[in-house]
């Protein structure tokens, strides 16, 4: 069991940035990021013990993370047992120029629907269209078409 825990910790640390980014893009404040992040980790741990390598570990992590964030009914329940994350940045309130740029990213991505948001995040992760399709459940061609539509939407947003 200890080997499993160590392996889990290693895998999570390798993908922690991606998980945090997704939780940030589906949250409205820092407490929500915290809640979602820990809910995601709990779901990953529960699934890790039964993980059968039917997909790559990266695909599996992104699926669990996105499904958790998209479907989370976090408005109803707020976890009280969360442990503080070792993060000393506040992406919602920090006022340096990088943080303002990051909030622009947040504002643009947040205006997209949840599935388009997921596609953009996967694309930003440098996944191929096939990999993105495997996470979302659509063909690589659909991914390409979707990205064109997303680009058009983003263009409309920046013209407003």
């Amino acid at each position, binding site marked *: 069991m200890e080997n499993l825990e160590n392996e889990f910790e290693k895998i999570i640390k390798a993908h922690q940035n991606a998980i945090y980014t997704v939780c940030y893009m589906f949250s409205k404040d820092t407490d929500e990021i915290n809640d979602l992040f820990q809910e995601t980790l709990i779901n990953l741990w529960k699934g890790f013990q039964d993980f059968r390598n039917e997909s790559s570990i990266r695909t599996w992590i992104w699926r669990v993370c996105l499904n958790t964030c998209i479907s989370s009914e976090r408005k109803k329940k707020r976890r009280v047992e969360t442990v503080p994350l*070792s993060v000393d940045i506040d992406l919602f309130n920090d006022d340096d120029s990088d943080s303002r740029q990051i909030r622009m990213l947040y504002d643009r991505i947040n205006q997209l629907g949840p599935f388009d948001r997921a596609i953009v995040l996967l694309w930003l992760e440098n996944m191929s269209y096939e990999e993105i399709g495997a996470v979302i459940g659509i063909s690589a061609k659909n991914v390409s078409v979707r990205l064109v539509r997303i680009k058009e939407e983003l263009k409309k947003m920046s013209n407003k």
Partner: protein
Amino acid sequence: METENDTSELNDLRRMNDLLQSKLDKQAIINKDLIERIIREKSGTLSKETTILIVFTILTLPFCYWVFYSLGFSLGFRIATIAILGVSLLMSIYQQVTLIRKRKLDEDILLYAEKMQKYRRQNHLWLAIMVPVLLLWIGYFVYDNFSRSGDLHQAIALSIAGIVGGIIGAILGAVQFKRQQRMAKEIIEQIELLKKE
């Protein structure tokens, strides 16, 4: 990585994301306490909230029966009240257990969303059934109240209290139902859009 869709808008996103990633690279994010807490998390079929709801409802059943018995309501009314509460409780448990058992978070996003929508539709249907049942129950309450009470003023007061409470409950239920329908419709539209292309 494909590049044919890289345009200025998407390039901007990439640039901003690079800033985010470089900030996150300097953070530890995960600590030993967190991992231990995650690993210790107990996996149960029912959530804590559902368990509390079940215990509360089980305690409420005999209490409701006793209150209406003390107030002199008919056996038929008491049985109807307990039946409605009991069936609601069983339905809530069934919905929670089904949802948790059917949740497979490692499925692709579309498939998972479709499944969750299916279970949510069942919940909505239940809500749609319960609101008119509640209104019927209020009617029975008023009828039984006037039938059993010798004191007209008390009967009126109790009926008004029951009707006001019932109407508030029905309105809240209807608002919740409409909100859930709207959210479900948005998700379904997006799923259809993704599948169509």
